[in-house]
């Protein structure tokens, strides 16, 4: 891809994340990229084309994460998975903040997203079931219980960036994000699971800046 195209995409992504998808026009993107609108239009004829390209980039990040072949047997692999999600939330926050706008204005892109959502929830549920077999997680206490928990974890991930806006506090950082998700798993760990958690995950969480606190 040409330098100019990259510059345009970077500028657009930055503006979408800062001002929201709906409030950004081609003129803003051109200004931010330091080029003329005419030059911009030569590379991308409309905002839609830019959004489509950014969506493709995002898919490249997301598809490997939710790929069914992705095998994450130990707890640390799930933690790595969370780090990947967090990275995505930070770099493409508009994609999570402007959900309904995205749905209204770009229905085609949105349909792709609905498929991703199902896959994410399904993958988390499978992870629970797999670790039941491994003896790290207790068997379901009610039928379909882990499906509901997987759905809740998906909600925590998806609305993580909206939450600060709602509570009027800054985004709380990767450590707290991970803590909140891990808290969903914690009550279901077996003794073996808890041991692995204390040895691997607790240490990792401790390695983040301790000044962060749940507010």
């Amino acid at each position, binding site marked *: 891809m040409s330098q100019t195209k990259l510059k345009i995409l970077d500028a657009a992504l930055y503006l979408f994340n800062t001002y*929201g998808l709906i409030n950004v026009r081609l003129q803003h993107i051109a200004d931010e990229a330091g080029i003329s609108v005419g030059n911009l239009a030569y590379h991308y004829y409309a905002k839609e084309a830019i959004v489509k390209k950014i969506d493709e980039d995002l898919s490249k990040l997301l598809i490997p994460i939710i790929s069914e072949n992705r095998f994450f047997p130990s707890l640390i692999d799930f933690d790595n998975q969370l780090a990947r999600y967090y990275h995505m939330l930070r770099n493409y926050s508009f994609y999570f*903040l*402007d*959900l*309904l706008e995205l*749905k209204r204005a770009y229905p085609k892109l949105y349909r792709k997203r*609905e498929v991703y*959502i*199902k896959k994410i929830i399904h993958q988390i549920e499978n992870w629970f079931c797999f670790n039941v077999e491994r003896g790290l997680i207790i068997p379901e*206490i*009610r039928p379909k*219980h882990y499906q*509901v*928990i997987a*759905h*809740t974890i*998906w*909600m*925590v991930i*998806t*609305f993580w960036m*909206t*939450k600060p*806006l*709602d*509570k*009027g506090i800054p985004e709380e950082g990767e450590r707290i994000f991970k*803590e*909140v998700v891990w*808290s*969903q798993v*914690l*009550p*279901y760990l077996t003794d073996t699971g808890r041991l692995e958690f204390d040895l691997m995950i607790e240490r990792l969480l401790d390695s983040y800046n301790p000044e962060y606190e*749940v507010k």
Partner: protein
Amino acid sequence: MKATPQKIINAAVSLFNQFGLANVRLQHIADKTGISVGNLAYHFPKKASIIRQIDQDLEKVIEPLLSNELTFPHLIDFDNQLSCYYALLNNYTFYFLDLLEMERAFPVMHIKRKKYIQRMVGQIGAWIRHHEKNGIFQPQIRPNQYRILGHTIWMIITFWMTQQKVSNTGKSNEGTFKETVWNQFLPIFTPVGLMEYEAIILPQLKLVNMPDL
């Protein structure tokens, strides 16, 4: 309130819920009410005046929910609280969907909302701690566990309507909502707590989950 202003407010809330706060104009509200824009402007000169009235109505609904005197000694009281929240989500969906627009265009409403949210998170947290002491919930197994749990429950409530629209999981349903919240408590009940849950809450949930006739 007299008949026409109330009709206008009802129409406005219904349109906001359906199309979003940003996408509704006075003309739409007048059409939906079945009056002229002139007549509407006589009662509410601007969209902001309608919003102010809705905000006052909301206060009457939310304040009792968050009242400090409100104690819920039994699990069923919390279940009732969840029903109230669900009604609020349903009747004022826009209040939970259009945060960005609200912050931008109606900051007074947004600031008030943030205060409600703080109290709501505090109330849920206090409720969990109360029942931990009471022997309904087990002691927490990790520092901050229940504080985080309170947060997560608040997230489930606040983003319930958005997730419904986003994930396209069909019609909104009070039973699924309540079940999702109660599932958060399921692993931390003591045997006593579980007994109360199974005797009182579970039959209640099954009742709500019955398909509409």
